[in-house]
């Protein structure tokens, strides 16, 4: 049993934002209310003695529902040298994520029930963040045949996506949206038209011209966003657009929502923090797909986030080995390592600069993802799963290979001191991290 006291509690689902106490018993939130007296606590927890209750002082810290990241690459099976489900879910806990959705672009691709169950079970074995598999839309990502969605759903998938690749064939995408109505869950679209993207390595513009790097035009994304929105409208399916990065995409999604299309969208913090102007020829940490946007795009992305056009934040955590990223820019793989640094990055670059409030961050990264993908968590409402994060906005940490749980270090923040980290992460009532240390023992609350 847990009694977290005097924390600044944020729970957008209950419109809670202020100093409160939160009580946890048997893995479930029992009460969240203004400062409680020992007698109230014992009564609410149905406990005899206060000694049976673990008391956590939350003064000066934020307490919010565990973050849910709907876009994570864990690389297992097949590329465990980059990351595995255990290291990735540990990194998630360290970063304040109690649930993560694992993309299917592993080797082999998660396109059947057996592999879906494997991912889920590896997550359970790691016993850190909850790991929810996202299965492929098409077998082998070939864009030719749909996967057995209903069977895979029974294996534990919560959505379908060929993320890592755009589905080039429009008819295939139309059929996927149509068939997924059976499953009732969204198709997550990685919008990238291969013919437009070509062999580009960063956003096409004056900066790519200056650096002599092949550019990817903004239209490579927005053309497919438009296509998928139209197909969703026509089929009445559910669409979730991954990593929106252009102003045209934001406009299209805004219009689609007005038209009543069942579409949601996510944005990656790195697209809100960096632009193509930050790209350095000799540092492939800045090589991501979709590429870092123009400054204009970035403004539109933030506007979209604040006016509800974009529904959630997601990391697109994409670990790669040091060897792969220590190459000339054009030759290195796309991807940024994010789980452990992203909350501090958002805190420093967006919250402290007044671009977004802490309450908005929690709605975008916990409540909205839980609602869209039908996941437990996302709120501190009594009766909900006790997925919690105690966040210290003052806590400073130097980002280094030694301190990170992830296997890869492809982050532009490596070697920098950052501010604002979770100091306790609780999943299903179990404390998984305290004082920045992961706890493997199954401490019951």
């Amino acid at each position, binding site marked *: 049993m847990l009694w977290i006291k005097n924390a600044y509690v944020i729970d957008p689902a209950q419109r809670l934002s202020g100093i409160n106490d939160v009580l946890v018993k048997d893995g479930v939130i029992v009460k969240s209310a203004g400062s409680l007296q020992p007698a109230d606590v014992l009564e609410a927890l149905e406990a005899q003695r206060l000694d049976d209750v673990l008391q956590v002082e939350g003064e000066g810290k934020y307490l919010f529902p565990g973050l849910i990241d709907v876009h994570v690459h864990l690389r297992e099976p097949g590329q465990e040298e980059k990351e595995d489900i255990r290291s990735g879910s540990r990194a998630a806990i360290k970063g304040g994520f109690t649930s993560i959705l694992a993309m299917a672009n592993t080797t082999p691709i998660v396109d059947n029930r057996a592999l879906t169950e494997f991912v889920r079970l590896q997550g359970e074995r790691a016993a850190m963040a909850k790991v929810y598999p996202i299965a492929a839309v098409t077998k082998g990502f070939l864009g030719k045949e749909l996967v057995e969605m209903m069977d895979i759903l029974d294996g534990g998938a919560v959505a379908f996506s060929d993320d890592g690749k755009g589905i080039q064939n429009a008819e295939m995408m139309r059929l996927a949206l149509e068939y997924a109505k059976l499953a009732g869950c969204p198709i997550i679209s990685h919008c990238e038209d291969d013919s437009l993207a070509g062999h580009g390595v960063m956003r*096409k513009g*004056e900066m790519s011209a200056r650096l*002599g*790097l092949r*550019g990817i035009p903004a239209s490579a994304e927005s053309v497919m966003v438009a296509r998928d929105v139209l197909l969703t409208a026509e089929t009445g399916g559910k669409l979730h657009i991954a990593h929106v990065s252009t102003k045209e995409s934001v406009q299209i999604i805004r219009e689609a929502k007005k038209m009543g299309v069942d579409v949601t969208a996510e944005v990656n913090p790195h697209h809100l923090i960096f632009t193509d102007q930050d790209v350095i020829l000799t540092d492939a940490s800045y090589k991501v797909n979709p590429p870092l946007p123009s400054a204009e795009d970035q403004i539109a992305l933030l506007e979209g986030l604040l006016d509800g056009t974009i529904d959630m934040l997601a990391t697109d955590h994409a670990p790669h080995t040091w060897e792969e990223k220590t*190459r*000339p820019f*054009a030759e290195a793989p796309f991807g940024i390592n994010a789980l452990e640094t992203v909350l501090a990055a958002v805190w420093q670059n967006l919250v402290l600069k007044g671009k977004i409030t802490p309450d908005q961050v929690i709605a975008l990264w916990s409540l909205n993802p839980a609602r869209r993908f039908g996941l437990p968590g996302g709120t501190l409402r009594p009766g909900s799963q006790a997925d919690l994060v105690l966040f210290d906005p003052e806590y400073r940490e130097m980002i280094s290979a030694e301190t990170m749980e992830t296997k890869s270090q492809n982050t532009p923040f490596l070697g920098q001191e950052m501010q604002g980290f979770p100091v306790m992460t609780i999943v299903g009532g179990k404390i998984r991290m305290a004082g920045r240390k992961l706890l493997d023992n199954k401490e019951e609350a």
Partner: protein
Amino acid sequence: MNWKHKDLLDLDKLTAEEIKHILKTAAPMKEILARPNKKLPTLRGKSVVMLFYENSTRTRTSFETAAKILGADTSNIAVAQSSVSKGETLLDTAKTLQAMKVDLVVIRHGSSGAAEFLADELSAGVINGGDGQHAHPTQALLDFFTMQERLGELQGKKIVIVGDVLHSRVVRSNVLGLKKLGAEIVLVGPPTLLPSEMNYLGVKTSYDLDKELPGADAVMALRLQLERQQSGLFPSIREYSRLYGLSQERLRQTGKDTIIMHPGPMNRGVEITSDLADSVQSVIEEQVTNGVAIRMALIYLLIGGTGSVVD
């Protein structure tokens, strides 16, 4: 002037004075080239490594000749360029070169930034012999040297560069340097090879060659990769040549004794007609000779120390 740079990666970090100093150093080098006995002891005991990931016999031979005349030992590491093959990475190669204690590395690589990447790892000097679509500073310097020989000071001179501006590292380095030297530059090409993002260079761009020729002191044709037609960048070689090919007749529009340049190798009859390429206006062969002189100057400045050039 005391030379203070370890590497030559591009012209953006050089001042106009430094560029002029390189050109000045190249002049006596060119005289040495004309001697019957072309071997100096200046860089005896120094080692220069050619690290060519892209085939370019012309550029490699030019550097090699330059290093040898100055008395340095040269060696070649020819590496097949393949970004996906799992072989030794550029980083491994850098570590090996570092261990061999070489004095200077000339790198040509298909990836932008490869030269800078290598320079960051090595205590030896690095000369960028062309990296991706990014930079080709020695080509630019030899172009300036050639223009200056014929036209004098480049301040105020009108230079028209025509062709595949988008993919050309030669253009990027040329514009950076020519701006510093005060020249007026016009870039010409079809919109697909001269897209709006090239405006970052901050010089005039145009799709119409004939309109830009009047008053030009130098016209530089860029090499056209003929296979780009297959990618749809232009409809046919015939049409390209009609719109952007240089001919004697077309060049009359400049109204001057304009010099004609080309970084080579040429597609004769495409970028330039043969008779123009071989005419008195053409300085294309001179560019090759000057390339050796410029590279001698650079090798000397980067690893030659402070002594006088020819003793």
